[in-house]
């Protein structure tokens, strides 16, 4: 807060009150944070993605797009193109419609014969023959007509075409809706891994820092050993393992979330180390502070001292670590899914949408470009937010 550069007498009572009121800690951080333009931009992007991820089902029901729906007659469509059902899919739909509305179907067949809109060959149902033509032909033929049967049929033919803003993939699924559902999986895994591993790190770091001695040495040896491993090869080995063979983990898994749970466990196992070191460092210095000594003198339990007196002091740096961790987790999830070892199809994630990108490049390069842009946007946003938080909680670290 800027202090006005005037002598005291010229201050109004309101200004004095404002000056005397202490700014709460979170507000200081917030004010610092919004100074960092890229961090603010990053948080807006993240907010939009969170809304998209939470509203994926709503978006799907409004647009009528289904992430799982395949259409082999419309593979590799370019962005902004429209796909049509294949002949047999149309036939199926028309048959379903006629079963539902038998009288409308009879009326429409008679109408088609009357106006000779379609010359049926022997044994062919004129309704199906007419309806399975190109949608543009059908709508042009009945555009000016207006009756109950035709209006209902018009509604039906409308569902035969789908607009694909981002095109379709190798089995004709809509890329846009898969990206939207992928946001849910990829960001969900990223955020959950970051939070869970921060909690593990908090536990390990505080135990090591508080008790010191042999416990500290042992825990930090493990931390350092894990930190020094090249992550991608190690993660690949772990991801290739059939975790179902481990009974403890089997209980957590259902067939539909198996790969997500597995990814979560593996990534958590390798992301807690930075937080652990950070927390240990702060706890080591906090241990020597007077308020801890005071709590000890008053006979507080170890757990009380750690949780009540030390944790509030490490929350701020942990927030930074979490937001930087989300970006990393998303990157690792994407890399493993890209290699075919992460999130398994048909569940869409940004990484597994890139799974056979190398072959697909020549057919439709947008299939490769779009999921990557989503990953890049999300990770860069989280990294900027982490940077902004870092500056906010520790003004000494601001880039000068």
């Amino acid at each position, binding site marked *: 807060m800027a202090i006005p550069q005037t002598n005291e007498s010229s201050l109004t009572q309101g200004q004095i009150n404002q000056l005397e009121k202490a700014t709460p800690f979170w507000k200081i951080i917030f004010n610092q944070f919004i100074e960092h333009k890229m961090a603010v931009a990053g948080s807006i992007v993240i907010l939009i993605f969170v809304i998209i991820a939470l509203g994926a089902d709503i978006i799907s029901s409004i647009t009528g797009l289904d992430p799982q729906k395949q259409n082999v007659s419309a593979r590799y469509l370019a962005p902004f193109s429209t796909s049509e059902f294949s002949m047999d899919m149309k036939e199926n739909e028309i048959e379903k419609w006629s079963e539902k509305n038998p009288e409308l179907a009879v009326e429409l067949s008679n109408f088609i014969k009357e106006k000779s809109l379609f010359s049926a060959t022997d044994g062919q149902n004129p309704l199906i023959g007419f309806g399975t033509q190109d949608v543009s032909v059908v709508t042009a033929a009945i555009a000016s007509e207006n009756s109950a049967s035709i209006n209902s049929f018009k509604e039906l033919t409308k569902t035969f075409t789908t607009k694909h803003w981002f095109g379709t993939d190798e089995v004709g699924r809509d890329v846009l809706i898969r990206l939207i559902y992928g946001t849910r999986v990829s960001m969900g895994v990223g955020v959950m891994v970051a939070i869970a591993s921060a909690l593990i790190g908090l536990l390990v770091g505080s135990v090591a820092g508080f008790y010191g001695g042999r416990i500290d040495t042992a825990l930090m040896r493990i931390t350092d050993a894990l930190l020094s491993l090249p992550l991608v090869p190690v993660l690949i080995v772990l991801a290739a393992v059939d975790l179902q063979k481990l009974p403890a983990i089997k209980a957590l898994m259902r067939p539909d979330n198996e790969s997500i749970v597995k990814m979560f466990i593996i990534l958590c196992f390798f992301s807690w180390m930075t937080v652990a070191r950070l927390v240990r460092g702060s706890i080591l210095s906090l241990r020597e502070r007077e308020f801890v000594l005071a709590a000890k003198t008053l006979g507080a339990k170890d757990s009380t001292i750690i949780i009540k007196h030390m944790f509030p002091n490490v929350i701020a740096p942990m927030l930074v670590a979490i937001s930087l961790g989300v970006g990393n987790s998303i990157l690792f999830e994407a890399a493993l899914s890209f290699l075919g070892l992460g999130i398994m199809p048909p569940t869409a994630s940004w990484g597994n949408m*890139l799974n056979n990108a190398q072959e697909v490049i020549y057919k439709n390069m947008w299939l490769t470009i779009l999921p990557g842009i989503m990953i890049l946007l999300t990770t860069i946003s989280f990294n900027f937010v982490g940077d902004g938080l870092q500056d906010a909680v520790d003004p000494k670290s601001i880039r000068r």
Partner: protein
Amino acid sequence: MTTFILRRLIQTLVVIALLSYVCFYLMTLMPGDPVELMIQSNPKITSEDIVRLKQLYGLDQPAYKRYATWVSTIAQGDLGYSRTYRVPVGELMGPRLYNTFILSMLSLLISLAIALPMGIYSALNPGGKFDSFVNLFSFAGISIPSFWLALMLIIIFSVNLGWLPAGGTETVGMSDADYFTMIKDRGVYLILPILSLSIQQIGGFVRYARSAMLEAMRNDYIRTAKAKGLARNVIIWRHGFRNALIPLITIIALSFSTLFSGALLTETVFAYQGVGKLVYDSIIGNDYNVAMISFIISVSMVLLMNLVADILYGFADPRITFN
């Protein structure tokens, strides 16, 4: 110093040994052991055959006994046989290690050659236009998925422009050509992998170079040197840069771990025949002998580089003692 190096060396070896056992155990958890694969490919196999085969391969033994057998064969110099490539593992590893070495060293050198001047320049002119560009670039570098960057380079340079091959290590049949043609040929295949590895590494290095240089230039002796009236170049290079180098050496040596991780993905995307691709292919293809050896070699390389980093740190900064 010697005791420190010895102690660290023993620690590293212990980690490698532990890790190799963990890796061995994990491999037993992977779907499809050799006998299972034989059962799949041969429907006429009887249950007695299966028992006999399991005994032959030692698969009826617990994991630690199999590990002991495996270690003793390794100790005798027998690295095993690759199921996929039909050659001894030792023969397979040599050229792969060479390929990965060339790829990672070249990209490390190139990214350092670009990142250090960039970082130093932006540290000397903080807050300027170039500085904010460097900031944005380094954030993009650390946030971009490495495999996607590689795919984008393929789209631009191979699919659209058609300048460079989309993947591979060398043109088939080139090994008979004379030396210079061969180097030229391999160079063409190296450009895109190196580019994609370097772009990411520059992102990380620039950040560290900038902050190390900023930190060094804020010291009191820099002010003293300025007050003495020393030339700007002398201040920057002899007083500033030399001190900025200390943290940089560690960062560079530690970056081998990420370099190797990145190289695995890059090699896979570009079908470049290096160790990283071998690790991936052998794990996917249930080629256990190759997977174990290549994994252990790659992890050991990284751990040894970390050790080298610690030792170099002591040489770069005489104030550090190893006690």
